[in-house]
């Protein structure tokens, strides 16, 4: 190491530590964060609307209100998983370190939301289906999404070299994206009990207006929350790299 005043950053295909950027505040709490504020206010607002301003469903009673958390959490999980898979493909293609960081962030957020889906699902299933768990196609698929996402994060933790870690996890994410249709197809052929989508389907949503508004508000709030978490995790990855913890 020479004692030059300004060390030149190594360039090329290696994982270089990016120079400090003004867009990444050193003290994040001193700066007002619009996305963070929007996500938190949105989620709190959605919960208030779900509890106090949404009619109780006629046949399922209050238990149906978990729908407004369950489905938006699932949508957020899908968003994070898609970001993870697409960023992994971009990484394998361009070897761009930012894509790897983004895939890592999305992977962790995906595990969080998939866990939320798997917790809210049985809570809803018990009073309505009479069982906590059933080997239905969608439940099985979600469970395996959770397993693959967990394996993805364990794999990342088990490789020391940052370049090999990025490549291995990108390969796994891309293969997992190919796996999902096969699991879906085989478990669908096995059996299915899960209700079909009532909002995100080709025909018009068959949900009453008030419920549809609550659902939409909640979904948008959750997606913002998901995006906010991914961005925060991305910044954490950047700070860790800068601090030399890779």
């Amino acid at each position, binding site marked *: 190491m020479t004692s030059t005043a300004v060390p030149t950053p190594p360039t090329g295909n290696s994982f270089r530590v990016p120079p400090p950027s003004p867009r990444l505040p050193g003290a994040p709490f001193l700066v007002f964060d619009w996305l963070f504020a929007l996500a938190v206010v949105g989620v709190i607002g959605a919960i208030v609307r779900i509890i106090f301003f949404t009619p109780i469903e006629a046949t399922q009673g209050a238990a149906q209100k978990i729908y407004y958390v369950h489905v938006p959490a699932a949508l957020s999980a899908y968003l994070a998983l898609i970001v993870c898979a697409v960023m992994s493909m971009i990484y394998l293609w361009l070897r761009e370190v930012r894509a790897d960081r983004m895939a890592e962030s999305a992977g962790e957020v995906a595990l969080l939301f998939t866990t939320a889906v798997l917790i809210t699902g049985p809570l809803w299933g018990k009073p309505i289906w009479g069982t906590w768990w059933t080997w239905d196609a969608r439940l099985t698929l979600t469970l395996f999404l959770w397993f693959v996402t967990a394996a993805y994060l364990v794999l990342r933790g088990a490789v*020391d070299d940052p370049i090999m870690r990025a490549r291995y996890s990108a390969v796994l994410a891309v293969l997992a994206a190919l796996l999902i249709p*096969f699991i879906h197809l085989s*478990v669908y052929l096995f059996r299915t009990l899960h209700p079909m989508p009532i909002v995100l389907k080709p025909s018009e949503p068959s949900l009453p207006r008030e419920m549809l508004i609550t659902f939409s508000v909640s979904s948008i709030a959750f997606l913002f929350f998901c995006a906010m978490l991914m961005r925060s995790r991305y910044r954490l990855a950047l700070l860790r790299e800068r601090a030399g913890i890779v």
Partner: protein
Amino acid sequence: MLARAPGLTAAAWIVAKKDLAIELRTKSAFLSVIVFTLLGLVIFFFAWDSTAVSALDLAPGVLWVTFTFAGLLGLHRSFGAEMQDRAIDGLLVAPIDRESIYLGKAIANAIFVSAVLVIAVPAVALFYNLPLGRAVLALGSVAVLAAIGLVAIGTLFSAMAVNTRMAELLLPMLSLPFFVPIVLTSAQASTQLLAGRPFAEALPWLKILVAFDIVFVVACTVAFPHTLEE
């Protein structure tokens, strides 16, 4: 797939022959995997009340679960052996395509797990009192398709897992979610065939299995070079 370029196929055969020669001379992995498979088949028999569940219903599931776990043991050895004295470096500097290393390893592994099945299928017929002729026909045809998918995935993940801090744990963790469509479709198809149902009833499962094999043999071959150091 294999006949894409003669250089690729020829090199793959050389790699496969090398791996099989090592296995033939040591026989260590084969014997332990065979014993593991037989133990698995026996232990599973006692896990169920044989008066409540008929052996015919039980056998295919037991075979595929045991086979999957036994396959993992064999697959771990595939790249594990290359790590000794960094033998992998010899393969990497060889003037062959990276894809042919993967294909060669996969061919050797496919022959390895097929040899395990040659013993496991009659064994499951013996222990579970299945009609041998029908069992060999039903399980054998599905076995070939299952082995291809298992080996395609397992060989790639073996190459990745050996370079991690917890290879023994990580290989099953990565592979098993990918084996789900294989185990599910194989077990369903072979249950139908064993029960003497018409072939058409097993066909949807076999179609998924064939599609799985094609997609993952291609995808893993393309992905493999990314898992190697440059």
